């Protein structure tokens, strides 16, 4: 529909400044409206005379920075318009620094536009149509972004490809006759979700055989773990008022489509999560990562019901996830992590059935950084990858074992093994190098001068190895944050800008509470880093961050290190034994294979212990 053309008088009621109005005038002219821009510094009565002189003025747009006594000046202007008999004929609008809608209304204006207003926003107001803000609006035109789109997964280092093929072949051969309680629960969960409620009793009879006592008690006696409670029906009911909430949103980028910005939620309560999600979506988050509690990952089986608890991370239940999913904006990417526990395959089934966009799997990280037994998590991980492929669910291969002391080249070797295995099984992996000030760099000094070169080297190395999507995480800037919110937001924004400069597909950012361990993250702290990232993206635009030549040198060293590790793992003949023996990170690095789930594997054919 073509908007009706309007006549607009633009009034810089300011001694000097009229730049904002010039930009707005250009936007209005481009849309075919008729505009008249007055010179700066006119008195209110002179402006009213011009309104009387002009024919059929529809809008008067006044620009003025608010300060001492300016409110009186603007109110006097409105009064003059009123006594001149013009008030019913024209719509009065004020804009400028410190202007807020409610202040504009107090002064008698019909609308007010404050700092950050775009010319397009004003044009939309003139044309009486809703304005879609920045990046999310752009995103909504194109729908959700597939982070793996356009990547060939072609290797650029054939020797590395050959070694990965050998290792992946070993994993599949070793896993062929093995299963686990986690694998079996995933199968049962899938059947239950696809057969409906009538199947429940039959499902539970078998499912609970594979669960820990804590989970069994919750199903049979509604007895929940400590600090855990069921959400009340009225709580769920009252939350509905936010379900179809639509409001003004900010963009986390300016003009450039990528990277998508993910935040991690998981306050322990799905209701609080939902409110944090709505805040983050509004402030420019493109994607959300469901953060689950570490305790749940060490328990065989998933609880059920709408559950809240008083610890970090929100419990993975079908009901909790479905509730959260129902509140997501249509274009928000949603990741349900499956990577680090005894419920890895079942979590992928939940994610797939609920229509999540992404999951997270990495057996090397899970065993070296998250306490899982290598054999158990390898079996569960292979099955999880199969489920991810079944649901066509891309997943990132996280490398947070760097935080346990594993050097980047070893963590990357593990990541590439899992990514290659995924490709063999029909999956769509996304590489997730960690942008961090890891123990490795603290010891060896790669970040003594700057945080740019070594992070850039990681990206350059992976880009030289394979044409695959990259999603630095998780979160970027790990171990550079402090409890100071300005410092924390700034370091996040700078790491985000570096990632953007390197052309990655997505990033995961922390809140400004990242380094605060005393309690839950507050919503305002999430806004801090989203806003800082937005401003940094705006500042750099298409201009890049230039690493020094050292980045290129380190990328070559990383590739050589990765290749050497893969050779050692391939020669060992066993991925799982390589994890136990520390080839992908061991005691000399400060990393030890985990023990959660040890001795729980079953023989596939007969369901017997291996």
């Amino acid at each position, binding site marked *: 529909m073509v908007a009706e053309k309007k006549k607009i008088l633009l009034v810089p009621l300011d001694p000097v400044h009229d730049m904002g109005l010039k930009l707005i005038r250009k936007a209005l002219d481009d849309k075919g409206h008729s505009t008249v821009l007055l010179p700066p510094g006119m008195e209110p009565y002179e402006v009213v005379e011009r309104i009387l002189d002009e024919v059929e003025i529809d809008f008067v747009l006044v620009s003025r920075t608010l300060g001492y006594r300016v409110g009186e000046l603007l109110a006097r202007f409105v009064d003059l318009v009123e006594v001149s008999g013009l008030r019913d004929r024209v719509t009065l609008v004020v804009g400028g620094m410190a202007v807020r809608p409610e202040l504009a209304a107090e002064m008698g204006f019909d609308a007010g536009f404050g700092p950050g207003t775009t010319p397009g926003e004003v044009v939309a107001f003139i044309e009486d149509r809703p304005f879609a803000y920045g990046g999310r609006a752009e995103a909504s035109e194109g729908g959700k972004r597939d982070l793996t789109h356009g990547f060939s997964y072609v290797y650029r280092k054939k020797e590395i490809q050959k070694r990965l093929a050998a290792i992946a072949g070993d994993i599949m051969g070793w896993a062929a006759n093995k299963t686990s309680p986690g694998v079996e629960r995933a199968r049962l969960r899938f059947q239950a979700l696809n057969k409906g409620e009538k199947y429940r009793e039959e499902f539970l009879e078998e499912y609970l055989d594979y669960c820990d006592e804590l989970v069994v008690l919750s199903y049979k006696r509604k007895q929940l773990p400590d600090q855990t409670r069921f959400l009340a029906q009225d709580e769920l009911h009252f939350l509905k008022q936010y379900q179809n909430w639509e409001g003004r949103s900010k963009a986390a980028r300016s003009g450039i489509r990528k990277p998508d910005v993910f935040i991690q939620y998981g306050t322990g309560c799905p209701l609080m999560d939902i409110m944090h999600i709505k805040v983050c979506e509004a402030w420019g988050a493109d994607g959300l990562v469901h953060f689950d509690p570490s305790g749940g990952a060490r328990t065989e089986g998933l609880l059920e019901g709408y559950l809240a608890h008083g610890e970090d991370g929100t419990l993975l239940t079908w009901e909790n996830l479905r509730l959260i999913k129902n509140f997501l904006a249509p274009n928000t990417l949603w990741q349900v992590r499956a990577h680090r526990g005894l419920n890895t395959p079942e979590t992928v089934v939940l994610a797939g059935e609920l229509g999540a966009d992404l999951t997270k799997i990495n057996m090397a990280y899970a065993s070296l950084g998250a306490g899982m037994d290598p054999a158990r998590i390898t079996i569960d991980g292979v099955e999880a990858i199969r489920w991810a492929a079944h649901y066509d669910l891309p997943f990132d291969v996280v490398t947070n074992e760097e935080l346990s002391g594993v050097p980047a080249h070893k963590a990357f070797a593990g990541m590439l093994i899992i990514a290659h295995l995924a490709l063999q099984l029909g999956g769509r992996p996304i590489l997730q190098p960690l942008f961090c000030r890891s123990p490795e760099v603290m010891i060896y000094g790669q970040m003594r001068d700057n945080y740019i070169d070594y992070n850039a080297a990681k990206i350059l190395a992976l880009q030289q190895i394979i044409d695959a999507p990259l999603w630095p995480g998780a979160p970027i800037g790990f171990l550079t944050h402090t409890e100071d919110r300005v410092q924390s937001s700034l370091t996040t924004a700078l790491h985000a800008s570096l990632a953007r400069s390197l052309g990655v597909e997505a990033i995961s950012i922390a809140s400004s509470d990242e380094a605060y361990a005393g309690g839950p993250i507050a919503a305002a702290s999430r*806004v801090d880093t989203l806003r800082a990232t937005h401003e940094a993206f705006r500042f750099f635009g298409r201009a890049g961050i230039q690493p020094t030549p050292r980045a290129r040198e380190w990328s070559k060293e990383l590739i050589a290190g990765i290749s050497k590790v893969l050779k050692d793992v391939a020669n060992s003949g066993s991925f799982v034994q390589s994890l136990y023996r520390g080839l992908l990170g061991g005691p000399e690095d400060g990393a030890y294979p985990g023990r959660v789930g040890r001795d729980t594997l079953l023989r596939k054919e007969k369901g017997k212990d291996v």
Partner: protein
Amino acid sequence: MQYAERILDAIDMETFILARDEGEAKGFMGRFLADLGFTDHDIVFLEQVGPGVRVRARAYIHRPGGSYGWLAEGDDNGG
């Protein structure tokens, strides 16, 4: 307000308020500061985005040119 006397000039509070608009949030925050006993306060920043309003409120303890409680406090404690 002995502790407050040690505040150099002002105390800021920033939060996210679920509110219909900035005016409502401003009112909530002003009343909240008054309830806390702050008589000289201002709203530094308000921005409605999403399901509520980001607010930064300020309570002045010592305005420039006023009587600085921390001068006396410093003297009491030997400077």
